[in-house]
Structures are given as C-alpha cells and as structure tokens.
C-alpha cells in the first residue's frame, strides 16, 4: 500500500522544554514505580499507563483512540521532589554561572560594554558567523571581573565538579540554589541572553535545572514478553522506575522532616539516577547496571556510536531486495556476471510496469505463478511473486490464484517478477573501502547455494573463498539500472582511480598458465592448440604446430604494439632479452618474452591497461575473459603441481648455507667481543649499544640474503614454486629461501628480540648473552623445522604482525569515516574547480593538474615513452 505523508516538514527548531510545557503535553502524571498489576494489566499513573500509548495489537489508545502503529504515543511526567541538574546542559549552566552575578543575576560587564556587545552580536548574526564563538569571547571577558558592576557583590570563582556539582568560592551549590541563580539571570538579562548564545524565546537558563521530568511514551520503550510468558521491560523503563522510587523516598523523608543529611543523600541519589537516565556513560560516575551486571542502555546510548540510531538506523539501514551468502569461484562466467542461486533468485524481484504494449506478455508471466516448471533443458524459469494493482493493493501470487490474477491484470499494475538472467544487480563485499567494493553485475541464475564470481574480480573486492560472504542488491527503477549499467558495471572499473592501472586482471593459476604457455619456445600440436584456444571461444585457423607465443597471440587485438620488461626480468633490458624476460608485441603478435604478472596480472597488467585505454572497456573485458580461460586451459593441459620437495636443495648447498650461518654467528661474536673490549667504532649519533645492535642486524640481514641467494641458485625455472614466484602468480623468492635456506632474524619493534626474563630472553640462555641465538636469530629453515627457542621467537615476531594489522585496520577505518563525512559534500564542477555545496572553492583545478586518476597512466597524464615508441615504430 502506498501511504502518503500528510505533513511536510518545513523547518526544525531546537529549544528547551519549560516545566509548564512538560506538564501541558503530558497525558498523565506518573506517581507509582509499579508497571503491571497481578493480572497483567497496566497500573494507572504507573510507567505503563494506557494513556501513554498502545503497544499491544488490538487495543486502542486511551488518549487518542488510535490503534497500534497509528498512535504515536504520548508523554507523561514525573514531578521531582527536588530540582536536579540536566547533565546535558552542565557545561552551559557552568558558563552562565561564570558570566553572571549571583546577587542580581546581571552580566558581569559594565553597561557601556554590554551596549557595544549588543551591536557586535547583531553583526555576528548578519555575517552568519558563529554565535557560539562570540559567546565564548563574552564569557572570557567576564572572567576578569572581581566585583559586580551593578550590585557591588564580590564575584566568587565558580567551579564545576564533573559531572553535575557546582561550587561558588569552594562552597557547594545545591541544584535548587543553582536554579534560583539562573532564574535571576533569566529575569535580569532578558534579551541579552543572546550574548551568551541562549535564545530567550525558546530557552530559559533555569529550565536546564529540572523540576519536572518528561516520561517518554511506551512506544519508545516497549516491554517484550519472553517465551516463558514473563515480561521484560526496556532499560529506559528500569531507569524511570529507579527515578520514581528515589523521588518518592525523597519526598516522604523531606515531608517527614528527616535529618538534612539523609535528605541530601537521597537528593544526590536522585541526581545520579536522572544523570544516568540521560547518559549512562557520564565520566566521573559509575554506570547504572542491570541485575546481571550489564550496563543499562539509556537515552544517550540509543543515539551514540556504531550501534546508535545515527550510524545503524539513519546513515545505514537494512534493506529489502537484497541477499547475502557465501561466495565461490566460477572461471566460466564473465567478469561482468555474477552467479545467483535459484533459491535466492526466486525471492528477489524486479518490478515491471504493465503497459498496453506488454500486457499480454505480462499476463503470460503472471500465469506462471511463483513456482513455474523450468523449460526442457533449462534449470530455471522466473515466475511472479506479487502483483501491485493500480490502487496500491498488493496481491501475493500463488500457484492457485495465478490464473485468475493474470486474467484480471490491468494496465498500470506493477508485477514483481523473479530475478532472471541478465538483470542488473549490485554486488558488494565489506569493508567497502573504495568504489570497486560495490559494482554492477549481470545476474546469471545457477544451481547450488553460493554466489559465483569470476576470479579476476577477486582483487577489487579483496575476496577469497575461505568462507567470505557477499551482499547483492536488485535495482528497482529504470534510472537506477541505467546508472548502474553505465557507471558501475565491472568492466568500467578495470582501471583503478587509486593508481591509474588495472585492478581487475589475471591472478594465481591464470598467470602460471600463461607463463607456462609462453615461456621459452614450447611447441604444441594441433590437438593441444585446439584444446587451449577453444576454451577462449577462438574460431579462426590453427596451424599443424604452434608455439605457445603464437597461441597467446590469437587472443591479442591485431593492432597491439607494446614493449616492456616482464615480471621475470630482474636486470637490464639486454640481459632480459636473452632470458625471454622482455616482452615484445608487434601488430598483435607476441614475438618475444614470457607472459606473466607484468602483462596480465591484476595491479600490474600492462596489456590489460593498454587495451582498456585504446579500445575501451568492452574490449578489455573480452580480453580478460579470454586470457583467464586461456591460462586455465594451458595449465590444465601442461599440468602443474607444487609440493614441499620443491624446496629441496642439494646437500652441498645445505653445507654452504650452514657455512654462511656459522660465519655470521662468528662475526656477531667478534662484534660482541669488540664491544666488550671497547674497540667497537661508534656510529655518529648512536650509543655504543645501538651501534652494536645495528652492526649485528646488518650481519644477520646479510646472512639471510646470502642463504637465499645460495638456495635460489639451486632453484631454477624447472621448479614449480619458482615458476609461481618469478612469474608473480603467488609467493616470492624470499618465501622460498626462508623455506629452503634459513628463516633469519626475528624482530619486535624493528629490534632484535630482547624482552622476556631478567637479562635474557628465555631461561635457556645465560644472562647478558648478546649472541645470535639468544636474540631471536632463526638459522633453521621452515622446511627443516625450527628449534623450540626459535619457534618461540618466531611467534613473538608473528604476534607483532597480527597486532599491527588489527590496530591499523581499526585506526584507518576511523580515519576513513571522518574523511568521508568531511568530504561527502565536495564535488567537481564543470569548470574543473572543486567546490563545496555553497559554492566555496576548495581547489581551483582538480588535483592541481585536472587529471582524473582513473584515466591517467599510473597517475601521469601522458606516457611520453609509449607515445615515442608508437610514433617511431609505425
């Protein structure tokens, strides 16, 4: 049903409620802390009084006569026996007290100065400047006054004892005294209250000291009935019960003429309850707790923080037409697609308006009902879940009524069709840190229960398949679909605005596969070439014998000309040319070089970037779809495996590594001896100890590098692990040398491990031992296994890494949120300047160079080298 709001909000004004206003808007005075009687009926003038609104379906409100959902609820009130300070205004009260005289309530400034301030205030308002900042200056001026210029009363220093206790000249002021004072201020200042940033039309200072407490309607604090039939009350109700109880006792004691001390104690207790009722995290007082020990969630807690009203119900909220499930890979769908389980597709719907042009078609659709039988050879056929008639009535389509609903279908109705192949949906993975975290995909309905996505889109979402879940949203309007299609489709995000390069591209086995295919001059038979190329949908000619490079060339655009160093390359151009590590592509033919991460990888893929810039997003998408399939077909055909024996190195190499480590240890001993004997040469600006540590770190670092170098000498490109590392598919040579050679020095806070026991790291070592083993040097390899002490040191280093990431993510999350909130209204104008919504200039030329980083070449507007090559080659 479409409901229209009857009232339009024109403006919102903020002010304070006066006691009279609170009483006037109150439906009833609340006097008893009890809520329900034995029969379960709400007690009159209790906290659940039926006049405060209805929460039980079927009942009518005693105040307005409306039913649940219609009745907004009504306020009640509590008459406080003694006034209490409102914590939310403690600071404002403090400011007013500081700036005024207790004797006459006037502003502590001479007449002529006030006259001038009135003029200044007018200017502030006219210029739209901050009246709060102005008030601060006024209060600052009054602080120097020692005697009231009007009544001559001595001005005593006022202090605020947080949260709600005021002192004048060291003597405590009761809330009643504070209120008296504020009343005087109200009377004496009148319109001059504006100088203190208080609008007398809507707020009087004395209203900040409560004498009447509004009781929120039951609709804001509904009680819930547990399965056992027991009633459980809202935290606010609990708090109000406390307030009423203490209020009653205070009243009784005061009326009975109890000793001043008892009355004061109860008064303070009432102040405590009212304070925690507003904010249960007020600093300086213990939070009020539930019987179970849980802190109560009172008014401020409902609004504040991540779980508060703003961040969890206003800035972000739960939505319809969305789904969430585990993700898994599907190399056979396009990067533009997303696989959606049938069960989800049946729940998610797209609204379609019935027009004279499509009514027959729509009738057929509705006739299918919500559970149509799939056609022969297919797995899914979309049905219709709801029909919304022109009058707004929503009819659930069932298998039984489908026929009749279809017959009665009129133009102007809307049918909610189940999701179908090709529908545009938004796909998202948290944390949504950049715009590529939410992209538009084309739906593809698949069996089983997971969302399926192409592996090439894992990098922008930062997704893997170890249990990650993702969200999906179905767009509901034509505008939204058009916008998503044009701006948010995956292919429009191949280049990242983060660094102006490809963020979508081949990963892992795609890279290994293409590398195996193109490295060296492997020759493939016709059958093999056919197997690989058919996977990409290639339909052209195939030769009797083809090299891997020729096969790869088939998926390259014909006018592609590129030259660059491959990932494999680790030295000069000439050197790399010899090792097949320099890629040369001429007229769409791969002539030299192996294809690896530098060519097709996400983050690095030169070919992808180039095609994207030259031929556009569609061509780039097609290339990525092909190259991933080509890679997988190649690796499947050629075969690829890795195991721990990939890190095997010959005996002789192991001896060499041992030698290097021994040598390093000896060098460290020498350094320590030199240090002890005072022969160590001090590095300028460092203490002797620091010098020693730095020297030792250098030795251990060098030793690790050397062992790695020895290990890699025996790990060639015939080794699977090395192929993955060198081609950029997965892992690094450092990982390998740590597995095969030695793990190396463990560090905490960038220093050798030094904490633990007194004078040593572990009880296994002598006190004062500065040697390699005692300070966290791991000379074992991951493969040979670590000794217990080495393992412990390694865990220390590893823990620091974990803590670092945990701290970093939380801190950068907070930083990002503040940035987003600060920058959300800044936009780029047509003239290239960056402006606020008010038109104020932030930047005269976006980014100073006016370059859209997405369209830049790795941040630069042009790539002169590439242009030069293009011009000279052709």
């Amino acid at each position, binding site marked *: 049903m479409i409901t229209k709001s009857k009232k339009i909000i024109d403006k919102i004004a903020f002010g304070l409620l006066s006691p009279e206003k609170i009483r006037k808007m109150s439906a009833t005075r609340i006097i008893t802390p009890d809520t329900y009687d034995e029969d379960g009926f709400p007690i009159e003038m209790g906290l659940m009084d039926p006049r405060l609104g209805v929460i039980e379906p079927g009942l009518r409100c005693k105040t307005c006569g409306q039913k649940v959902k219609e009745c907004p609820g009504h306020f009640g009130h509590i008459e406080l026996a003694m006034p209490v300070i409102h914590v939310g205004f403690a600071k404002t009260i403090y400011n007013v007290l500081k700036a005024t005289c207790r004797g006459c309530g006037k502003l502590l400034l001479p007449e002529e100065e006030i006259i001038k301030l009135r003029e*200044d205030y007018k*200017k*502030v308002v006219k*210029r739209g*400047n*901050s009246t709060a*900042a*102005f008030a*601060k*200056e006024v209060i600052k001026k009054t602080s120097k006054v020692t005697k009231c210029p009007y009544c001559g009363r001595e001005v005593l220093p006022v202090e605020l004892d947080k949260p709600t206790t005021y002192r004048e000249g060291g003597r405590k002021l009761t809330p009643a005294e504070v209120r008296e004072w504020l009343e005087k201020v109200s009377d004496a200042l009148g319109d001059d209250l504006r100088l203190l940033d208080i609008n007398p039309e809507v707020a009087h200072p004395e209203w900040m000291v409560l004498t009447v407490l509004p009781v929120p309607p039951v609709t804001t604090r509904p009680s819930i009935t547990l399965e056992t039939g027991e009633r459980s009350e809202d935290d606010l109700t609990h708090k109000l019960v406390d307030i009423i109880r203490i209020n009653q006792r205070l009243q009784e004691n005061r009326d009975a003429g109890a000793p001043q001390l008892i009355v004061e104690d109860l008064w303070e207790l009432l102040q405590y309850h009212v304070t925690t009722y507003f904010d249960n995290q007020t600093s300086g007082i213990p939070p009020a707790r539930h019987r179970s020990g849980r802190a109560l969630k009172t008014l401020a807690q409902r609004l504040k923080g991540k779980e508060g009203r703003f961040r969890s119900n206003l800035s972000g909220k739960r939505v319809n037409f969305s789904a969430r499930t585990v993700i898994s890979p599907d190399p056979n769908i396009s990067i533009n697609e997303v696989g959606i389980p049938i069960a989800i597709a049946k729940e998610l719907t797209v609204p379609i308006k019935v027009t004279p042009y499509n009514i027959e078609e729509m009738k057929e659709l509705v006739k299918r009902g919500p559970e149509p039988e799939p056609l022969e050879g297919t797995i899914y056929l979309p049905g219709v879940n709801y029909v919304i008639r022109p009058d707004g009535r929503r009819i659930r389509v069932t298998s039984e009524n489908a026929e009749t609903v279809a017959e009665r279908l009129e133009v102007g109705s809307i049918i909610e069709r189940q999701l179908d192949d090709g529908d545009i949906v938004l796909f998202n993975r948290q944390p949504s840190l950049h715009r590529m975290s939410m992209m538009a995909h084309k739906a593809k309905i698949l069996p089983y229960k997971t969302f399926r996505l192409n592996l090439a889109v894992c990098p922008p979402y930062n997704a893997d398949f170890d249990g990650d879940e993702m969200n999906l949203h179905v767009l509901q309007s034509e505008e939204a679909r058009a916008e998503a299609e044009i701006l948010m489709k995956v292919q429009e995000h191949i280049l990242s605005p983060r660094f102006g390069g490809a963020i979508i591209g081949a990963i892992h086995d795609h890279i290994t596969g293409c590398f195996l295919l193109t490295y060296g001059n492997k020759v493939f038979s016709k059958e093999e070439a056919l197997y690989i190329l058919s996977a990409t949908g290639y339909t052209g000619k195939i030769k009797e014998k083809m090299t891997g490079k020729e096969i790869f060339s088939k998926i390259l655009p014909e006018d592609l000309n590129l030259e660059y160093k491959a990932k494999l390359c680790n030295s000069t151009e000439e050197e790399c040319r010899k090792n097949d590590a320099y890629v040369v592509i001429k007229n769409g033919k791969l002539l030299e070089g192996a294809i690896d991460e530098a060519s097709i990888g996400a983050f690095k893929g030169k070919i992808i970037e180039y095609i994207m810039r030259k031929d556009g997003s569609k061509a780039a998408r097609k290339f990525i779809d092909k190259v991933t399939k080509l890679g997988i077909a190649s690796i499947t055909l050629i075969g690829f495996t890795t195991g721990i024996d990939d890190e095997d190195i010959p005996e002789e190499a192991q001896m060499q590594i041992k030698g290097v480590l021994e040598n390093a240890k000896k060098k460290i001993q020498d350094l320590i001896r030199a240090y002890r004997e005072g022969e160590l040469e001090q590095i300028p600006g460092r203490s002797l100890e620091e010098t020693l540590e730095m020297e030792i770190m250098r030795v251990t670092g060098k030793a690790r590098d050397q062992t790695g170098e020895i290990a890699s000498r025996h790990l060639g490109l015939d080794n699977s692990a090395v192929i993955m590392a060198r081609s950029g598919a997965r892992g690094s040579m450092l990982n390998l040398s740590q597995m095969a050679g030695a793990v190396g020095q463990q560090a905490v806070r960038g220093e050798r491990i030094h904490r633990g026991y007194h004078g040593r790291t572990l009880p296994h070592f002598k006190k004062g031992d500065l040697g390699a083993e005692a300070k966290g040097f791991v000379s074992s390899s991951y493969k040979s296994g670590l000794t217990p002490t080495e393992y412990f040191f390694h865990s220390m280093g590893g823990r620091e890494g974990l803590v670092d990431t945990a701290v970093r993510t939380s801190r950068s999350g907070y930083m990002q949120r503040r940035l987003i909130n600060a920058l959300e209204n800044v936009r780029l104008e047509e*003239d290239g*300047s960056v*402006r606020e919504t*008010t*038109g*104020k*200039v*932030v*930047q*005269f*030329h976006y*980014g*100073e*160079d*006016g*370059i859209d980083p997405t369209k830049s070449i790795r*941040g630069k507007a042009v790539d002169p080298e590439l242009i030069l090559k293009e011009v000279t080659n052709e």
Partner: protein
Amino acid sequence: MKFDILKHTLVPHHEILSGEDVEKLLKTYKIKKEDLPQMLVTDPVAKAIGAKDGDIVKIVRKSPTAGTSISYRLVVKKEII
C-alpha cells in the same frame, strides 16, 4: 637583520592581485569574493607583501602533479564578530 621569509624555499610565491585581475578572476569562476579560500591579514606572508583586508592574493606553488599550480586567497581580518 630580519630574515626575508619570501625567500624561504617552503614559502610559495605570493602577489596581490590588481583590481582588474580580481574582476577577471571572479568572472571566470562565477564566484563572489567570499567563496575564495581565505588567509589572515596577520599571516606572516600577508604582512610581508603588505596585503590588506579584502585583497586577493595570487599564490603560485610547485605542484607534484602539475608542475606549477595557481590558487587565490582572500585576505581577511580575524574576528569572531
């Protein structure tokens, strides 16, 4: 001897815009003076070049992205009123 801050490497080039150029600037960006970023009259550079309240200062900076970039600031008096 007083150090000339305008000669410091970290201080970009500042100059007071002539009335004619001010007109042109406001016209090209279709803005009012108040829409410009601001700098205080008490700013050491403003003092050094003798800029007064209401002047517009042209600043030419070195830019890592564009080589040099030009921006403008309105000189204002600090007042909470």
